[in-house]
């Protein structure tokens, strides 16, 4: 009987058979209630979360209106796909996932308000959400105060670590160092021009890039570093400077709509990306959709996931995503990271045998997800993910071609010594 009381592993058929057996008078004399494979709610939920015998509620908190909607929609779609797949596979500890979606409206205080609502009113067992650093900074105190669990999908600047957050995207060093090493080794790059939109993520990333270039790469130097306001569309002056200084690598961390202007103006100025090396950490397949493949073809991007990755997990994931959300959708790095959120949460709950936030936080380190579209990920003690760093080259059709990937998983290091 020992494997009968072990939850979550039986097929429905087996369960029915067992229930049939339970109906037999001889067996019913045992009068044990443990034939159900669903552990009692009182045992797995000691802190009053929204968990019933058949359902568990999670929150989805992204912007579906406002300027960030275009970026965050992919994450919402990926999270809904993951939840649907988990439900189809039997749910979490035998409970179907029900989700409550809230709109952060690209507005940081709204994020805080909605996060509070999801935790205090709806008692969500976990929340998948946020995109920009600003929105995460706004909700972080809420999650810490009300002891919630946030699965945050975006690659970000690091310098943060919380018991109440699992960072499923890469922190800055995971995205930057391997890419710089690669471009230095294979392209022989010695001089770098750093560009970025003017906010915390590009600034912190370029700071790490500069330290790595100056202190760890032999004979390399930074020849320029410039920032542009969010939404800026004028890049002609910096493009002229680039033409004058002729850096081996343009290192670009420009975000959102500015990308469209930047790559078009680069092309118009006659900078041919098949000859001039450009490495970006901010352009995923989603952004190429807006920029236009022909404008960015030849550029290199350093990410952990590309839609074109050739592995069995991704070959199942991409068609499932397109089936649910349409043939035309593209899947970028963050979308994939958002897909990991519900799965990692499910695996952690099953490891902890509990929905309690404290137990999930404690059980998270070491949880591995072998079905990740990017290949394989594992949660580190610092609540970030071990994952590989990859370099891809943009093609005119809007996809990336994988050029290089690290041999091993890269350790997340949100507080890198010597890089601050």
């Amino acid at each position, binding site marked *: 009987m020992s494997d009968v009381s072990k939850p979550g592993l039986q097929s429905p058929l087996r369960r029915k058979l067992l229930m049939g057996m339970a109906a037999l008078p001889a067996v019913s004399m045992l009068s044990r209630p443990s034939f159900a494979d669903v552990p009692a709610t009182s045992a797995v939920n000691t802190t009053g979360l929204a968990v019933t015998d058949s359902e568990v509620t999670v929150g989805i908190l992204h912007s*579906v*209106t406002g300027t960030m909607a275009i970026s965050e929609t992919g994450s919402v779609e990926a999270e809904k796909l993951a939840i649907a797949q988990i439900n189809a596979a039997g749910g979490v500890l035998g409970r179907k996932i029900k989700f409550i*979606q*809230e*709109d952060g*409206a690209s*507005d*940081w*205080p*709204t994020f*805080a*308000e*909605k996060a*509070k*609502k999801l935790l*205090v*009113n709806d008692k969500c067992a976990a929340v998948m959400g946020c995109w920009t*650093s*600003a929105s995460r*900074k*706004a909700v*972080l*105190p809420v999650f810490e*105060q009300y002891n919630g669990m946030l699965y945050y999908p975006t690659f970000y*600047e690091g*310098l943060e670590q919380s018991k109440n957050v699992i960072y499923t995207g890469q922190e800055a060093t995971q995205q930057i160092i391997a890419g710089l090493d690669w471009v230095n080794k294979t392209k022989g790059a010695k001089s770098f021009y750093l560009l970025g939109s*003017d*906010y*915390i993520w590009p*600034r*912190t990333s370029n*700071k790490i890039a500069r330290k790595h270039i100056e202190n760890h790469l032999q004979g390399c130097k930074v020849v320029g570093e410039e920032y542009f*306001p*969010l939404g800026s569309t004028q890049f002609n002056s910096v493009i002229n400077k680039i033409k004058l200084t002729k850096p081996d690598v343009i290192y670009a961390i420009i975000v959102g709509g500015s990308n469209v202007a930047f790559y078009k103006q680069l092309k118009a100025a006659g900078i041919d990306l098949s000859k001039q090396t450009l490495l970006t950490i901010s352009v995923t397949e989603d952004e190429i959709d807006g920029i236009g493949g022909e404008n960015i073809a030849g550029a290199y991007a350093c990410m952990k996931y590309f839609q074109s990755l050739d592995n069995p997990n991704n070959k199942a994931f991409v068609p499932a995503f397109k089936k649910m959300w349409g043939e035309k959708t593209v899947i970028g790095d963050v979308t994939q990271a958002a897909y990991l959120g519900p799965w990692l949460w499910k695996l952690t709950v099953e490891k902890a045998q509990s929905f309690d936030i404290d137990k999930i936080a404690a059980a998270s380190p070491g949880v591995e997800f072998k079905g990740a579209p990017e290949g394989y990920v594992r949660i580190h003690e610092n609540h970030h993910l071990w994952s590989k760093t990859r370099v891809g080259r943009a093609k005119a059709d809007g996809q990336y071609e994988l050029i290089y990937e690290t041999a091993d998983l890269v350790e997340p290091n949100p*507080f890198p010594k010597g890089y*601050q």
Partner: protein
Amino acid sequence: MIINSRFFNRSELIGFLALAVLLFVILPLSVDIFRLNLVAKYLTYAFVGIGLVLCWGYGGILSLGQGVFFGLGGYCMAMYLKLEASSVENTKIQSTPGIPDFMDWNQITSLPFFWKPFHSFPVALMAIILVPAIFSLIIGAAMFKRRVGGVYFAIITQAIAAIMTILIVGQQGYTGGINGITDLRTLHGWDIRTDHAKYVLYFVEVVLLFGCIVAAQFIRLTKLGRILVAMREQEDRVRFSGYSVANFKIFAFCAAAVFAAIGGAMFTLEVGFMSPSFVGIVPSIEMVIYTAVGGRMSIFGAVWGALLVNFAKTSLSESFPQLWLFGLGALFIAVVLAFPNGLSGIWADHIQPRIDRLLASRRPKSTNYVADGAPAE
């Protein structure tokens, strides 16, 4: 004859009492602390609304930059709270302990000079009032003395709001940039994140709000209030009568700025952070919309407008995450087209007369009520 014989007329008294009962009794007893905290957040916009009633409704000065003063008040409070949260032991892991975390991320190694005074609570409280007052005085003096008014003034205030946002976002090492100032914890050693603190803050805020209502009503009823209305209607005649129009306008604008700043400071306490998204053009226009929906001639209307519009915003966005903005837009258009005097106009034109008629039919003696309830101008 400086003040009318009665501070509130009958319909205003009803409005005052109704609001007091709602805010002091009904809401705290009927909703949980999460919703009450939301109400507190909505009410912070009511401070701005009261200021706009004075400056726009009575003075005829449309300011599309009230977010600037809301933000200045909020940032002054946030700077004090942030310094308190950034004690040396809280920030051990930074390269420079004892300064706010965002400064450390931006390679700033010592506290900038203009942050230093905000170590002191009294200075911070004074700054909340004085910084916006002085700033609005400078803007007001620069514009009204040159007789810039009407739509030009509105455009310039909007430009100031835009400049302010760019300044805050661009100087992220000193201001927290687009993230704003987050993770605020204690006020003078008192944890503002607990439920108990939220209750206390709510009542403090409501008391302050009624203070502002009384102050605004006082201004409205003095000779000053009369001159404001006269200026709105016929600016030249007031000037020819020997009044300095500019000074009165500057006063109304400064008063509105101070009210907005008090709201901003309360916002920081209620919500626990401040960011440039309350300073720019969009929030400034939203604040004008609250006032327009409530009725720009009514102090109570402004409070109701802020409450109801924000309540609609929250509940619509909870029920229809993808469509709510359209619904809200439609609501504004409907209100502005059908009821140009806002909610208070609906009350004064449709509901109040009916109540009066009902009362009059019961007590035929008191027919002179209607005249009392009509607009004083």
